[in-house]
């Protein structure tokens, strides 16, 4: 039995070295990254695998639980800190190249509101990503705290595993309102953007992972996505703010 077990490990866990990089990425990037990967594959013939989810969930998996990510794109600073603290950041981090903003959305039959205070007064359910699992939730809570509403509004909050699940809750009508990224709201014609949270921009932390099996391949893909005009355009049309890629992940500063 032990021999069989060891044999299975030996033959089958090597599968991760077939050269296809595994990229862990924020749920908010699922559409644009999948499309970018299609472009990348048409151009270079190389495939990329993804795992999308709440950035904190994923960062924790990579940093503390040994998940075999080769590269990451996470929303906000906290997941990035987890990666850096674990000593897993390969080379540089593409800072402030991709940025998002946070909006409040309404689904079906909602009374129109114009501010967070209105949101609290409405007494309706609000879908938000769980702040412990996804930065979209963390930032939503920050905005509510800054407005002094976190206490009063807490009973109305419905936490979901990631920001796309929050979007889905509003789309389905299970909650009337939601706090998601601008780009998530734009993917759906079943929700309406009510207003944007001011002075809140979320930068994506983008880097390869050290000691990963396919980190070179991951970095190649990440550089491609941030530099090629075709993929940059995909991000821009989705509503992300895209700046010049001064430093790509892994570049020593070029």
């Amino acid at each position, binding site marked *: 039995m032990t021999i069989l077990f*060891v044999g299975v*490990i030996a033959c*089958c*866990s090597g599968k991760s070295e077939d050269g296809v990089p595994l990229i862990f990425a924020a749920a908010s990037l699922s559409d644009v990254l999948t499309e970018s990967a299609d472009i990348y594959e048409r151009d270079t013939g190389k495939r990329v*695998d993804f795992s999308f*989810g709440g950035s904190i969930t994923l960062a924790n998996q990579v940093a503390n*639980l*040994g998940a075999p990510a080769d590269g990451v794109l996470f929303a906000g600073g906290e997941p990035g800190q987890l990666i850096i603290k674990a000593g897993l950041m390969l080379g540089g981090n593409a800072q402030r190249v991709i940025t998002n903003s946070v909006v409040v959305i309404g689904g079906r039959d909602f009374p129109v509101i114009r501010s967070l205070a209105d949101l609290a007064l409405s007494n309706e359910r609000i879908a938000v990503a769980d702040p412990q699992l996804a930065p979209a939730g963390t930032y939503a809570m920050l905005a509510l705290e800054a407005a002094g509403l976190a206490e009063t509004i807490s009973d109305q909050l419905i936490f979901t595993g990631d920001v796309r699940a929050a979007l889905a809750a509003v789309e389905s009508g299970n909650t009337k309102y939601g706090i998601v990224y601008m780009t998530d709201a734009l993917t759906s014609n079943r929700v309406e953007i009510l207003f944007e949270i001011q002075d809140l921009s979320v930068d994506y932390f983008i880097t390869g992972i050290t000691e990963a099996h396919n980190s070179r391949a991951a970095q190649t893909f990440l550089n491609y996505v941030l530099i090629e005009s075709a993929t940059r355009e995909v991000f821009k049309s989705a509503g992300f703010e895209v700046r010049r890629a001064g430093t790509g992940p892994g570049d020593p500063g070029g």
Partner: protein
Amino acid sequence: MNSDISIVALSLQIALVATAVALPLGMFFAWLLVRKQFRGKFILDVLVSLPLALPPVVIGYTLLWLVGTNGWIGRLSESISGSTLAFTWIAASLAAAIVSLPLVVRSFAAALAGVDPRLEIAARGLGAGSVRTFLTVTLPLAYRGVIAGVLLGFVRALSEFGATIVVAGNIPGRTQTVPTAIFTRISAGDTDAAWRLALASVVLGVIALAIHNWLLKRTSATGANGSARANR
């Protein structure tokens, strides 16, 4: 999106390997519990039943520590192949094997308890070794328990969610099984896609149960339980 066929195929692969591991182990434990007396037997009984009483996420988390960077299985794997077993399909199979083990044990133990031990003693008395006795006398008389154990264990392995998602993650193409894929699709609001896979689950369950019934019907009356008349 990860295609439905590939998700089902991976789930089947994981469940088959899990059952292949749980079956011999389960039969052995059942045999120990039914036929043998030894100190600490109560502990074995508890351990083998524990996965039934624990939340699957607890099983997954415990397994994660064993097969990750801090556990001995993880370190063994790292020395062989350079990476731990965490977040691989093998980890998913191990999790599935653990949750199906109690079902295999119970099914086989129940069948074993119905086999007259005097038949085994007689075989031994006639010169058969313990393995030969088990294979030629015990097993044919307890085959119903094997069939039930295999099927129950298999469908349980196929539907494992909590342990899988903790120890193997939910990585499309690598560790995303039917249950975890359905969860992702529900979360993303992909209702059509979620229902398609839910339907696939139903079909798989029906097929498993049909095979179970067919295998049981294939009894020859003469192969029946040695200590009681076979009756329909």
